[in-house]
């Protein structure tokens, strides 16, 4: 029996997005690093550097601590899987993809939380000081970032009366242009959450291994070779997913619909442009901001939460 052509087409779109995301994610990280290098007057390693790193890591032999349990071994695969799944749910090149019905925005936050829980447990598994230190700091940052992210998503959900990302994007992208003051607040809160969740500069510095400041790097210190490669790749995917959520919520204009081949080149072009701009913006933010003390992070993320709440309140007051 043949499936109907519409479903087949939707699945083709879905698979295209999946492949595109997993292949392009390191490129985005490379672009952000390259922009940062340019802004800091360095020549930089080139946008392809993350691929070289991944290639190198995949060829190496993995070294695992003697007392590492099965949890430590499976965590990279789970984290990578979670991030890939998250990227599959978010409407990136087209709305109404078949996978996106599987989970709404709350489940999406849950997927991120699952990955985080596993990586924190794995960091504690080997029992080194740095691992548990990093895990505890990560949980501190993330338990403050998660409610803020949920509030941001709720603001968008209130506007579109749905927690399904495709519905939200459809309303924002394909109806007449409306200025939403509440989304301005949500966007600001989202940027703060993005910086915190992706181990970016004011909260964490991904490029150092200084024990006093590192969070994410401290957790993955025990990983090597293919495990490390998967985790690095998952980090790139996470950044890509977060930026895609940002684009979907605040700049969704120009996204294609499933089955609309004609709109696809334009959607690709706009997506590329938005990603380039978002990456450059992220690099700029990281360059102008200074790394803050870890105990300032709760205040920083508290601000994000309050901004998101303010967005919700403004939505109630103004109905927009």
């Amino acid at each position, binding site marked *: 029996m043949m499936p109907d052509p519409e479903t087949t087409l939707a699945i083709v779109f879905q698979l295209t997005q999946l492949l595109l995301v997993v292949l392009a994610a390191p490129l985005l990280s490379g672009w952000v690093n390259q922009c940062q290098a340019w802004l800091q007057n360095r020549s930089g390693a080139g946008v392809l550097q993350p691929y070289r790193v991944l290639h190198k890591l995949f060829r190496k032999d993995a070294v695992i601590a003697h007392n590492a349990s099965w949890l430590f071994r499976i965590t990279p695969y789970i984290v990578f899987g979670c991030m890939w799944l998250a990227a599959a749910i978010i409407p990136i090149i087209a709305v109404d993809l078949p996978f996106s019905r599987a989970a709404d925005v709350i489940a999406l936050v849950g997927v991120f939380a699952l990955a985080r829980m596993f990586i924190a447990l794995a960091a504690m598994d080997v029992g080194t000081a740095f691992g548990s230190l990093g895990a505890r700091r990560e949980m501190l940052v993330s338990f403050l970032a998660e409610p803020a992210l949920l509030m941001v998503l709720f603001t968008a959900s209130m506007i579109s009366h749905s927690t399904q990302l495709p519905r939200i994007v459809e309303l924002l992208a394909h109806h007449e242009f409306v200025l939403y003051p509440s989304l301005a*607040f949500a966007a600001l809160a989202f940027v703060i959450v993005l910086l915190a969740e992706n181990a970016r500069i004011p909260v964490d510095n991904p490029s150092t291994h200084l024990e006093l400041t590192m969070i994410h790097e401290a957790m993955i210190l025990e990983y090597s070779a293919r495990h490390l490669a998967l985790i690095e790749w998952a980090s790139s995917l996470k950044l890509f997913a977060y930026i895609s959520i940002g684009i979907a919520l605040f700049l969704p204009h120009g996204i294609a619909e499933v089955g609309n081949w004609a709109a696809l080149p334009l959607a690709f072009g706009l997506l590329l442009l938005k990603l380039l701009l978002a990456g450059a913006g992220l690099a700029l933010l990281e360059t102008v901001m200074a790394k803050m003390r870890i105990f300032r992070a709760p205040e920083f993320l508290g601000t994000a939460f309050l901004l998101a709440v303010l967005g919700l*309140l403004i939505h109630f007051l103004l109905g927009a």
Partner: protein
Amino acid sequence: MGTTPFIVQFIDLLASLLLLIVFAMLAQRRILSLINLFAWQGALLTLNTAVVAYSTAQHHLYYSAALTLVLKVLLLPWLLHRLIHRLNVRWEVETLINIPTTMLVGIALVIFSFNLAAPISELAEGITRGLIGIALACVLMSLLIMLTRRKAVTQVVAFLSLENSLFFAATSATQGMPLVVEFGIALDVLVATFIFGIFFFQIRETFDSLDITHMEKLKDD
């Protein structure tokens, strides 16, 4: 949704940004950034007044927009900058309550004033009536900044922000006050800033500090 004209959406957005700026002032630790935020607040207020003037065709509001631009974006921030330069104060703002708590109180104030303004805005007329709640929240938050800060300069900036918020409330609720009244208030604010400046020097001369908690120790005992 989608029925409100674009100009109203734009005014709503500007009003929300005003609220955002007051929140940023509440969270601000540095005096220089506080003054810059105050200048931005004035700029947003100018834009807002001009847009309201355009959309309601009230030409006297253009004059008050121009007045706001000259006084609150250019003159007062310049005066304040000169003042803190001459006082040589660049310290971090000291707060009485820590900043996250202040911001939580701020959110509570926003909820309170939105609720309070809901019946009032039912009575008001015109396109900007939804903004009374935001204006009230700005007023209360400026008061909160005044209450929670120790230093005299910060309190003056908060006072000026309070005046800005009241001006915004007047524009959004009643389509602006008569021009004579506005000129009067503008002059008052200008003179007040000069007098505050003199006070700063007096306070510092007497107590060697701008911390106004010292003023409570004046009593003889």
